[in-house]
């Protein structure tokens, strides 16, 4: 169980049963307490009730299910993660930025900048976040809809916010302190999501970011299981992530002094980043149903944790707290 909405969903489903008097689901403990008038054995009841929630991926059992950590998956996951991390760093050294030779900005240039941004250092922060969120979502039974909504939110957000930057002539990028704080927060979110993907500790589940019950109740009534709003908001929020390329594009959008030009600049840039980000999000969704998904999630978890630590070290270095540890 992942969210407060799921808790409500399960409670509502079980309440429908005539013989049930009260239901109480604990998300933290993965625990459900049902009271009522039953004639069957507890095992039989659990089986009947499971039928109600099984289509959504839940199983009710009397015994505590000990999810095995499946340490064996790490034998493959760790070296694969290592190869990908090494590949990422080598890519950074390849001097992709020198591919941008033109200094006047056309929409074509902006698209190319977007393409380069999506495989450059921004991959560590935006890509890392997309990967950790989509893999977590896929792991918890999220659908293509969640991922699509994220990308729609990102494109739409870039259009509107880019237009506003152009219109108001006011940059929306954040100051030094806010930048460092945001970088730190993103790193911590990635760290928690990464550890969660490894599926070896159960305490991080409690640390997960969840919406308040009242909000979930509202959303869940309309859409049953999947959230609509959250992925869209996260998509829009990527506008503010501390990625150098995004910020340069915002500065350019600002200099246009026009809503449409600013909006189109940012949208074209977001379109340039789309292939890589879509690959990450839909790729993880696809793999989440493959037999070797355990290895995949542990690989992604390891990569996300490494990127989170990298982002954290960078945030601390920009704050002047520690000396820079890395230079790409």
């Amino acid at each position, binding site marked *: 169980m992942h969210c407060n909405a799921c808790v409500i969903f399960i409670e509502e489903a079980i309440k429908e049963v005539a013989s049930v008097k009260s239901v109480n689901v604990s998300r933290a403990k993965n625990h459900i307490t049902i009271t009522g008038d039953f004639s069957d054995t507890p095992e039989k009841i659990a089986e009947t009730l499971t039928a109600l929630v099984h289509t959504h991926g839940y199983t009710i059992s009397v015994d505590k299910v000990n999810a095995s950590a499946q340490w064996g998956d790490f034998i493959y996951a760790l070296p694969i993660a290592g190869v990908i991390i090494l590949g990422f760093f080598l890519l950074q050294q390849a001097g992709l930025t020198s591919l941008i030779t033109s200094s006047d900005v056309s929409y074509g240039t902006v698209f190319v900048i977007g393409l380069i941004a999506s495989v450059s250092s921004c991959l560590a922060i935006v890509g890392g976040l997309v990967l950790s969120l989509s893999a977590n979502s896929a792991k918890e039974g999220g659908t293509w809809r969640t991922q699509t909504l994220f990308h729609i939110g990102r494109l739409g957000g870039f259009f509107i916010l880019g237009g506003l930057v152009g219109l108001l002539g006011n940059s929306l990028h954040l100051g030094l302190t806010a*930048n460092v704080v945001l970088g730190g927060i993103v790193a911590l979110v990635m760290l928690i999501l990464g550890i969660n993907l490894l599926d070896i500790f159960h305490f991080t589940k409690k640390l997960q970011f969840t919406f308040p019950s009242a909000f979930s109740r509202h959303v869940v009534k309309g859409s049953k299981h999947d959230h609509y709003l959250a992925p869209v908001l996260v998509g829009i929020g990527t506008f503010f992530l501390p990625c150098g390329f995004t910020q340069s594009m915002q500065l350019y959008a600002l200099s246009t002094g026009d809503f449409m030009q600013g909006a189109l600049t940012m949208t074209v840039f977001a379109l340039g980043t789309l292939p890589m980000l879509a690959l990450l999000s839909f790729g993880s969704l696809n793999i989440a149903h493959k037999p070797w998904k355990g290895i995949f999630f542990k690989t992604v978890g390891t990569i996300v944790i490494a990127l989170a630590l990298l982002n954290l070290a960078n945030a601390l270095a920009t704050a002047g707290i520690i000396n820079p540890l890395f230079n790409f």
Partner: protein
Amino acid sequence: MNTSAFISVAVSTLLVGGAFWFISVKPDTDETNAGVPTALIIDGTQVIDISAKGGYSPRKVIARAGVPTILRVSTKGTFDCSASIIIPKLSYQKFLQPSGTEDIVIPAEKAQGTLQGLCSMGMYNFQIIFQ
């Protein structure tokens, strides 16, 4: 099982360790800083030129301490992080134009010790050593 686990951990450690070594800031093996460019002093003002694109170049400059200094950062089609320059000790942060030069004034009293500059995401950096 145990052998493969051991091989796996060894290979991973090697890969990740190698990757981090590759991008880490290497400590100076040469204390004399031979080959490091030195800033020029013209009419009592020290001018340090650094170009920003996909990182900063030169990454390390030696300058004289206690002299009013101008750090001149030039950009040429720079859209990456190095356009977003931060110098924590000066509380300086600026977004540079994609092409152009920017003069950052360092007063004499601040021209001491090592001044560290970074891009806003922290993956590119440069050092000015005042001595």
